[in-house]
């Protein structure tokens, strides 16, 4: 409350009546002090900046959160860089800080869900996931990305197998298993992974973020979908957390000076620096590097089985007509197969599916990690296949979506005894949040010998045991490339 000189003087004289005889002197002192009041260099933007911080704090930590001390080390009086940098720096770091307490709800918000990594399976009604053979069920496209990730040198094996035309004649592989086919007894338990879609309250708290850039209150409720944070320094690891998917992936951001190929400006340079066979690491070495990274990162790998190295590049090298110009992969993957209900998981094409660590050959270090996600599932009963001959037919073709060209010459690959497993398949939806990620009981057959003269390098054949899936006789596999047919037509003419 502002006071006039007069009122302040009267107040003083009331406090000390002996000063009444010096009223004018007292007034002079009071006036001098009032006139000397210093300006305080108030910065209006500061009020909004701090408000943004407080809103974040209220949104993340709640009113009486014990963890709000997270912020205090940052706001020590000698740490001024936040406000020097403006709201953007502050907002970015506070978003990062929310990772430390992502589950604290904003007052009044629904409680965020626990994202525990341990497997939880919730039984639901039979056939709860709809048709397994839905029209938009992932065929060649669903597993392609994973297939291509494996081999540095080759491409997706499905397309390659049907489209590569060996000199002389067109061949396809017939997979032969001579033993008994163990059929399931009783209903099949199919699993569907549930996206946790964690209700991360940072979305509400972000209303204060960068308040000078946008009026967040003009928009509806906000929620955090994903966060990307990166270490500082060269060759830093970058982490991507997807709150909708419940997944974490890691990528190493190599500095240009760490990669000789980044320095190249001409083909001769690339040729000079590319990897040679002698540079490649043994499977034991890449597994050791992958394990060390997982252990050092504190990643719980208990949901995954013993690691395997999809070394397709070795098969491609073996079959490559010109080994001197063969491209050796810069990164080799190690897959720790997911174990669901104690069974290993495979992709439809036969690749093990699970926690994958990419090992950089040059630096002998982990360069990536993905397929690490929350293990929450529903379980629903589906009808099993009861006719072993239908299973053999699918084995013969090499599993789901493999098309048999009647004009092709068949060459045999021998299969070993099957193991019970689960086949992962994704039914895609234009709204990706409605994609169904299903795990269907299957048999997985190891390939024990490959036919000579083909480009086949598959190690496993996976055959699902759900009756609906075996009904898909022509599962969407594209016919061979058109260039094969005109040649046949020309020959016929």
């Amino acid at each position, binding site marked *: *409350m*502002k*006071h006039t000189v007069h009122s*302040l003087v009267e107040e*003083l004289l009331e*406090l*000390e009546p002996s*000063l009444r005889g*010096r009223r004018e*002197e*007292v007034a*002079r*002192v*009071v006036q*001098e*002090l*009032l006139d*000397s*009041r*210093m*300006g*305080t*260099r*108030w*910065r209006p933007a*500061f*009020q909004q900046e*701090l*408000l943004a*911080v*407080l*809103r974040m*704090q*209220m*949104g993340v930590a709640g*009113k*009486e*959160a014990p963890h*709000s*001390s997270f*912020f*205090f080390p940052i*706001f*020590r*009086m000698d*740490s*001024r860089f936040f*406000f*020097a940098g403006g709201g953007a720096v502050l907002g970015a770091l506070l978003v990062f800080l929310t990772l430390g307490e992502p589950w604290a709800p904003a*007052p*009044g918000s629904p409680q965020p869900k626990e994202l525990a990594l341990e497997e939880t399976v919730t039984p639901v009604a039979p056939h709860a996931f709809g048709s397994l053979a839905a029209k938009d069920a992932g065929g060649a496209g669903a597993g392609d990305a994973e297939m291509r990730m494996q081999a540095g040198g080759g491409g997706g094996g499905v397309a390659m197998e049907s489209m590569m035309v060996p000199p002389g004649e067109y061949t396809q592989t017939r997979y032969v298993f001579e033993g008994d086919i163990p059929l399931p007894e009783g209903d099949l338990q199919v699993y569907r992974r549930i996206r946790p879609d964690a209700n991360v309250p940072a979305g509400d708290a972000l209303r204060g973020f960068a308040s000078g850039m946008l009026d967040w209150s003009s928009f509806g409720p906000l929620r955090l979908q994903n966060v990307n944070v990166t270490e500082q320094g060269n060759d830093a690891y970058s982490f991507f957390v997807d709150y909708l998917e419940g997944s974490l992936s890691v990528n190493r951001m190599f500095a240009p000076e760490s990669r000789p190929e980044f320095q190249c400006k001409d083909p001769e340079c690339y040729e000079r620096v590319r990897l040679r066979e002698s540079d490649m690491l043994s499977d034991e070495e890449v597994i050791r590097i992958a394990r060390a990274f997982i252990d050092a990162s504190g990643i719980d790998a208990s949901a995954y089985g013993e690691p395997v190295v999809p070394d397709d590049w070795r098969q491609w090298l073996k079959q490559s007509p010109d080994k001197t110009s063969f491209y050796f992969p810069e990164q080799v993957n190690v897959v720790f197969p997911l174990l669901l209900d104690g069974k290993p998981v495979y992709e439809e094409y036969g690749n093990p599916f699970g926690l994958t660590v990419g090992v950089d050959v040059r630096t002998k270090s982990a360069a990536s990690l993905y397929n690490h996600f929350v293990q929450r599932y529903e379980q629903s009963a589906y009808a099993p296949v009861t006719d072993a001959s239908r299973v053999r037919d699918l084995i013969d073709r090499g599993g789901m979506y493999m098309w048999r060209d009647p004009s092709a010459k068949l060459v045999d690959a021998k299969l070993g005894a099957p193991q019970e497993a689960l086949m992962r398949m994704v039914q895609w939806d234009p709204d990706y949040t409605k994609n169904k990620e299903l795990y269907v009981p299957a048999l997985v057959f190891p390939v024990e010998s490959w036919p000579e003269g083909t480009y086949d390098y598959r190690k496993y054949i996976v055959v699902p045991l759900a009756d609906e899936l075996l009904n898909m006789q022509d599962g969407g596999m594209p016919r061979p490339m058109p260039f094969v047919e005109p040649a046949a037509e020309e020959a016929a003419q």
Partner: protein
Amino acid sequence: MQEDSSLVEAFRGGDNAAFEALYSRHVRSVYDFVYVRTHHRQTAEDIVSQTFLQALEGIGSFDAEKGTFAGWLHRIARNLVVDHFRRLRPADSIEDAWDLPGDADVPVDADTALQVGKIRTLLKGMSPRQRDTVLLRLWHGRSFAEIAEILGTSEAACKMTYKRTVEKLQAALLVLLLLSILSPA
């Protein structure tokens, strides 16, 4: 307009907007209070930030029957100012920028340094308690009850300190006046 105590209760009940209202109501006065004692904008902003974050975290400890929210807030700020200077100059045991020696390596805003030069002479000879009392009353317009709360003393003691400090200032001002008359322009 809602009383501060009502807003505190509303915030405790889950109404974040209530805390925002308290913040908007008091942030400027807390800032001015801190700036007067630090003479440096960035330092003042840091301390004010800490003040409100501590207030947010410690809102459960505020008791409306023992004092005002404004007083409680300013006391937090004052303690943070004292901590700041004790950390910077542990050997000097100073509580605010007024007592900084002339050669102190502590950031202060240049124009403020010029401005305070005039009154530093008046205020430097006082104790921090005396200085706070006078400035809180004359510059910040706080009541004696609030000053007592901020300084952790009684209202009667505040009034006593205030009137004695003004008397002391009166004498100092007289000396300055004489010096200005005697010194050539």
